[in-house]
């Protein structure tokens, strides 16, 4: 299948889905709308709303009298930038990024540590399984209580999701280093420190990177769910506000913005993965 052909087919699926939505919500069949506007909005309304959100946000920033204060970009009372769609995006992105970076670093460090110390790992094993089995949503109110309505309660929620994915992958990566490669490296004169750098580390990183799509996705989910449950800004907040007033168009517009946003991030992850896992055989690295 050529790239152009594939792209056309991908577009076709989208066009058909939107077509069905449009017909269902705007054309009465036998006097009945089978996708009533109140519950489903219409694609045109949603497109207009997305456009309006960005146009208004951009206009507000462009026509601003004051200079934008870069240190207050995340503050909802920031003049001009506050409460625009751009700020909501920036806040969700910041939360997701912080959750990913902190969660990944903690996961790598603790994953390595436990994998290299079997006794510690055996002692902590039931607790790690217990924490991982916990549905993270129930933690959100606790984090709100501890860390407030700002970004950190969302970062904490994303952290609990990212940490376990990275942790389990790094742990596995260190445990599953091929014994032959390890024996060979030792015969080539590598000491413990050099084994870490040349064998364990690349192996663990490759496992971590192979879960990059999942962990980045979960970082964003953590941010959005956290915002949804209690916040004053962000994409989750935008959607929650629209829901509160039965503004279906607003909800769908928020979802569309979120989806495109995640798609762009995922594309960035694919690029990063291609560079970082260049040594992987294609079958193991997925289609990315």
């Amino acid at each position, binding site marked *: 299948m050529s790239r152009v052909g594939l792209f056309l087919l991908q577009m076709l699926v989208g066009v058909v889905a939107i077509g069905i939505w449009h017909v269902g919500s705007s054309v009465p069949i036998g006097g009945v709308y089978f996708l009533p506007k109140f519950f489903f909005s219409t694609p045109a309304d949603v497109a207009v709303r997305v456009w309006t959100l960005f146009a208004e946000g951009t206009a507000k920033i462009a026509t601003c009298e004051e200079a934008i204060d870069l240190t207050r970009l995340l503050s909802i009372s920031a003049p001009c930038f506050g409460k625009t769609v751009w700020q909501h995006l920036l806040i969700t992105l910041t939360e997701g990024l912080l959750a990913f970076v902190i969660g990944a670093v903690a996961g790598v460090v603790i994953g390595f540590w436990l994998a290299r110390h079997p006794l510690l790992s055996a002692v902590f094993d039931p607790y790690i399984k217990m924490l991982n089995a916990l549905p993270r949503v129930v933690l959100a109110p606790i984090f709100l209580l501890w860390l407030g309505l700002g970004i950190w309660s969302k970062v904490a929620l994303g952290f609990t999701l990212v940490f376990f994915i990275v942790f389990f992958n790094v742990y596995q990566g260190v445990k599953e280093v091929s014994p032959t490669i390890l024996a060979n*490296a030792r015969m080539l*004169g590598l000491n413990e420190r*050099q084994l870490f750098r040349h064998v364990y580390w690349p192996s663990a990183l490759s496992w971590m990177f192979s879960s990059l799509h999942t962990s980045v996705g979960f970082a964003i989910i953590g941010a959005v769910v956290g915002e949804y449950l209690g916040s004053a800004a962000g994409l989750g907040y935008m959607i929650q506000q629209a829901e509160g007033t039965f503004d279906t168009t607003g909800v769908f517009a928020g979802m569309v913005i979120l989806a495109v946003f995640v798609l762009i991030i995922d594309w960035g992850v694919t690029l990063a993965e291609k560079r970082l896992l260049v*040594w*992987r055989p294609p079958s193991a690295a997925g289609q990315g």
Partner: protein
Amino acid sequence: MHERSAEGDATARYAGLAIRFHGVGIDFPVAGGRSYPAVSSTDLSVGAHEFVSVVGPTGCGKSTLLNVAAGLLASSTGRTFVFGSPLASLNRHAGYLFQQDAVMPWKTARDNVAIGLEVVGVPRREALERAQGWLKRVGLSAFHDRYPHQLSGGQRKRVGLAQVLIRDPKILLMDEPFGPLDAQTRQIMGNLLLDLWAGDRKAVLFVTHDLEEAIALSDRVVIMSAGPQARIIGDHAIDLGRPRDASEVRLAPRFHELHKTIWGQLRGEVLKAYGGEVA
């Protein structure tokens, strides 16, 4: 006192030998607290410039013996001497070519070859230059920036060979290194090995189940019996001239005589190994 003098004696006697197995036996623990006697009391010497092959049926403990010589595995009984010194940890004089792929998949061919120099403090630039030289000697100079998965099985073996030889070990341990390759590639690799070996004639302990390959390459062929409690049951000098061509030598009449004699001895063991499996 007696112990100590006996050890000094051994050190002096074995100083000229690259490897000396002295009553080496290896037991593996199995389920139920029992142990499986893989190799029983084995004596074997490899001279400092000798190419010795160990041939035996599958599962006879040839590779186990190699791991003892490498210091990767401690023997249950007996001792191993390397140039006269008892082996206590990893064998620093030895380079080991494994049966399975052992090159690091996350490093390019050149980085894989250079690693042995880098870890002993050779500056990266120089290490890479020398690695490139070794890649050339194994016929891979154009493939220096390929990753292992982009190379064929034979090419990966060449990278492994260069990776081991760049450290200039005095002893080469080889565990069916060409086992996974096809027949033609095996012969090409055999000749490459002989060419490289002819330079400084390192001590080689070469494990294989392929008798023809063993005769074509070696100075001596040692036969191991079928396990458990495998032991050495034959030791044949190969008096074919050198330099040899690993594929052409197979046509020489003397090769056939040697093959016939050694196979006569090996055959029974191979059948025993299979018989054991059937029963």
